[in-house]
C-alpha cells in the first residue's frame, strides 16, 4: 500500500485569493446564462454551435485527465510499483477533471436537466458517437470515485468525528467505512481494469465526434483515424500532466519533487510523442494533405504550431537525459506537451471547423472565457483543499525525507517479505539487498 498523508499547509494564500476572484467572475456569468440563456454570455450561434466550452472544458479536460488511467495502468496493471507514489495525485486530478467536465456541460447544455437521458434505455442511441462518449464518461466517473474510496476510508476509518446530533450516526459511518475497507481491496482490480478500458473507449471516441463533418472540417485535421490520434495523444499527455502536477505541487507545498520517477516517465513520453508524430505524418502522406501545409493562413499556422511546439520540440527535449533530470526543464517540456494537446483539441473542434455558410469566424466571448477560467480556478482550489484533507500526496510528514527514499523503503520492505518465500527471483533480490 502506498504511504501518503494529508499535506499540512495554510490554505489561504494570496494565490488562493486570486483564484477565488476568478471563480466569482465565472459564477457571475454562469448565473447570467441560467437567467438569460447561452446566447447572453457566449458567441455561439447556428454557424458555431460549439465553442471553447466543448474544445477546452470537455475535450481538453478529458484529455488532460488521462494521467489517471495511464498511471493506474502503469502501477497497477503493469505493476511498476515504484510509480505508486504518483497514482493518487493523478487519480485525484482525473476525478476532479471529469467532475468539472460534467459541471462545465451543465452550463453548455441547453437542457442541462436532461443530462441523465443517455442512461434511459428508451433513448439509447447506439449509432451516436456522442452517446458512447457520454455513457463511458459517466461510468468512468463512477469508477474514479470508487477508486478514490480507499483514500477516504484511510482518512476517516477509526476517527470519524461528527458534529452535534450527527454524532449518532458515527457507528453507521464507521461500519460502512470498515465494510468498504474489507470489500474494496478485493474487487478493486476489476474497477482499475474497467477504468483503463473505459478511458481507451471514450478518449478515442472524442476524436470520432468530428469524423461526421467531412464537409465542414479542414483537411489537415479531418481524417478517419482521428479516434486513434485522440487516443494516442491522450496517452501521451497523461504522464506530462503527472509531471507538471508533481513538480508544481512539490513547489507550492515546499517539498522535493520525485525527480527519479518523473524523469523516467519523461523518457516514456518522448517515445509516445514520436509514435504519435509518425502516425500523424503517415496519415497526412496517405491522404495527400501535405500541400495544405503550404497554404498560408490561420489553419496551416496553427497546425505547424501544434506539431512543432507541442510534439516535436518536447519530444526532442525529453530525449536528453540532462533535461529530464532537471526539474525546471522537465517541467517546461511537460508543459509543452500539455500545450500541444490542448491546442490540438482547440484546432480540431474550433479552428478546423468551417461552417458552410460562415459569415464570420468564431472567437470566444468574455462570458465563455470567464466560465472556463472559473471552472479551472475552482478545480485548482478543490485540488488544494483535497490534498490537505486526504492522504493523497506521497510524503513523509514527520521528517524531510524525499519520496525516493520512501520508495526505496517500500521496495526493501517488499523484498524482505519476499525473502522468506523461496522463488525464482530471490537470488536477484538478495544480491541487491546485500
Amino acid at each position, binding site marked *: 500500500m502506498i504511504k501518503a498523508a494529508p499535506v499540512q499547509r495554510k490554505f489561504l494564500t494570496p494565490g488562493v485569493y486570486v483564484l477565488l476572484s476568478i471563480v466569482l467572475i465565472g459564477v457571475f456569468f454562469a448565473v447570467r446564462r441560467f437567467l438569460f440563456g447561452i*446566447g447572453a454570455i457566449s458567441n455561439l450561434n447556428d454557424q458555431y454551435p460549439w465553442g471553447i466550452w466543448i474544445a477546452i472544458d470537455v475535450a481538453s479536460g478529458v484529455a488532460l485527465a488521462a494521467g489517471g488511467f495511464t498511471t493506474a495502468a502503469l502501477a497497477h496493471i503493469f*505493476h511498476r510499483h515504484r510509480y505508486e507514489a504518483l497514482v493518487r495525485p493523478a487519480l485525484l486530478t482525473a476525478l476532479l477533471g471529469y467532475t468539472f467536465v460534467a459541471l462545465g456541460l451543465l452550463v453548455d447544455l441547453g437542457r442541462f436537466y436532461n443530462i441523465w437521458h*443517455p442512461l434511459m434505455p428508451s433513448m439509447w442511441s447506439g449509432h451516436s458517437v*456522442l452517446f458512447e462518449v457520454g455513457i463511458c464518461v459517466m461510468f468512468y466517473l463512477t469508477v474514479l470515485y470508487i477508486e478514490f474510496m480507499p483514500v477516504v476510508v484511510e482518512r476517516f476509518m477509526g476517527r470519524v468525528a461528527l458534529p452535534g446530533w450527527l454524532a449518532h450516526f458515527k457507528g453507521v459511518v464507521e461500519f460502512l467505512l470498515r465494510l468498504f475497507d474489507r470489500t474494496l481491496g478485493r474487487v478493486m482490480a476489476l474497477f482499475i481494469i474497467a477504468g483503463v478500458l473505459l478511458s481507451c473507449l471514450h478518449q478515442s471516441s472524442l476524436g470520432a465526434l468530428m469524423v461526421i463533418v467531412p464537409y465542414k472540417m479542414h483537411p489537415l485535421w479531418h481524417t478517419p483515424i482521428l479516434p486513434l490520434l485522440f487516443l494516442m495523444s491522450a496517452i501521451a499527455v497523461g504522464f506530462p500532466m503527472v509531471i507538471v502536477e508533481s513538480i508544481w505541487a512539490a513547489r507550492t507545498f515546499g517539498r522535493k519533487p520525485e525527480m527519479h520517477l518523473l524523469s523516467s516517465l519523461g523518457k516514456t513520453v518522448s517515445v509516445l510523442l514520436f509514435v504519435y508524430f509518425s502516425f500523424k505524418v503517415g496519415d497526412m502522406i496517405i491522404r495527400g494533405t501535405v500541400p495544405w501545409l503550404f497554404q498560408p493562413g490561420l489553419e496551416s499556422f496553427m497546425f505547424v504550431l501544434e506539431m512543432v511546439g507541442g510534439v516535436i520540440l518536447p519530444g526532442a527535449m525529453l530525449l536528453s537525459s540532462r533535461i529530464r533530470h532537471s526539474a525546471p526543464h522537465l517541467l517546461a517540456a511537460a508543459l509543452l506537451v500539455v500545450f500541444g494537446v490542448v491546442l490540438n483539441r482547440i484546432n480540431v473542434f474550433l479552428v478546423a471547423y468551417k461552417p*458552410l455558410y460562415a459569415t464570420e469566424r468564431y472567437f470566444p466571448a468574455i462570458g465563455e472565457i470567464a466560465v472556463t477560467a472559473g471552472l479551472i480556478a475552482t478545480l485548482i482550489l478543490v485540488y488544494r483543499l483535497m490534498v490537505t484533507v486526504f492522504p493523497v500526496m506521497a510524503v513523509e510528514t514527520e521528517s524531510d525525507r524525499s519520496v525516493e527514499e520512501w520508495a526505496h523503503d517500500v521496495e526493501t520492505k517488499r523484498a524482505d517479505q519476499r525473502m522468506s518465500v523461496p522463488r525464482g*527471483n530471490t537470488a536477484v533480490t538478495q544480491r541487491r539487498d546485500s
Partner: protein
Amino acid sequence: MDRREFTKLLGATGLALVPGKAAASDPHPHARKVDGIGVLVDTTLCIGCRKCEWACNQSNNLPEQPLSSFENKSAFTSNRRPDAAHYTVVNESRPDGEPIWAKVQCMHCQDPACASACIVTAFDKRDDGVVAYDASRCMGCRYCIVSCPFQIPAYEYDNALTPQVRKCTFCLERLDEGRAPACVSICPVECLTYGRRDELIALAHRKIARNPDRYIDHVYGEHEVGGTSWLYLSSVPMTELDFPELGDAPVPCVTETIQHSIFKNFVPPLALYAFLGQIMWLTRDREQDAEAEGSDAVATQAVRDQGGTTL
C-alpha cells in the same frame, strides 16, 4: 507467455481498435432505405414570391406573421439561412445575370446526420420519410447542428431553460390530417410538388427528358449524402444557387462503421478487458527483477508495454 507473444496479442487487440481498417469493407450498418414522401422543387418555376415562407410561419406558429412583410423584396439582397424563427427562406441568385430563386429548408435526408449524431435519439427518420424532432428527449448538446451537412438546424440560444433545436417539421400535423405541407399548398406556380419520393424522382427525370434545354441533367438530392426527401431541379448546378457540393456517401457512414466495429457484439471491449486483466495477473510479481535492472531499463520497458496497448 513471453514478451514476444504478448506483443503479438497486443497487436491483434489493438487492430480491432483501429477503425476503418478492419471494417472498411462492411456496408454502412445503419443505412435504412426509407421510401417515404418528398417534395420536388422546380427552381425554374419559382417566382420568388416568398408565400411559402409566410405559410410556413403560419403553420408552425413562428413569430413573423403579417403577409405584407414577405412582399418585401429587399430580403433578397443577402443570402439568408433558416433560423430558429424561420424554418424556410427563399434566396435569390444570379449566376448568369437572370435571377433564380431557391427555397431552403431541412432536406429530410434519407440517412440523416442529425439523427445519427443525436445522443438521445431526439431526431428520428420516420417510416414516412419525415425527420422529426422530439424536444422532450433533447438535452441541448447541439451535436445535431454540428453534424448537418446542409447547416440547417438552428438553436434558441436566448431561451434560458427550454431551448429547442428548430428546423422544418414537414408540417407533421398537416400530414397527419392528410394534407400537403403548408408551403406546397400555397405555392401559386406549382414550383413545389408533394408526393412519394420515388415517384418524384421519376417525374423529375421525365421533366428533364422532355425539356433538356431547360434543366441540367441532375436531380439534386437524388444521391447527395445518400439521398434526401427534398429534391431540386434547376437550370444551373445547385452549387451555383449556393447549395453545398456533396458526395453520394451518407455522412454518418464512417463514424457508424467505426462505432459498430469497436462495439461489435461487445467483443473488442471485452477482449481488451480480459487482456488487461491477464497482464495484471502475469506481471503481479515481476517488478522485483525489473527494479534490479535499473530505472532506465524499466522506463524503456514501460514504453514498450504502454505503447503496445495503445497502438
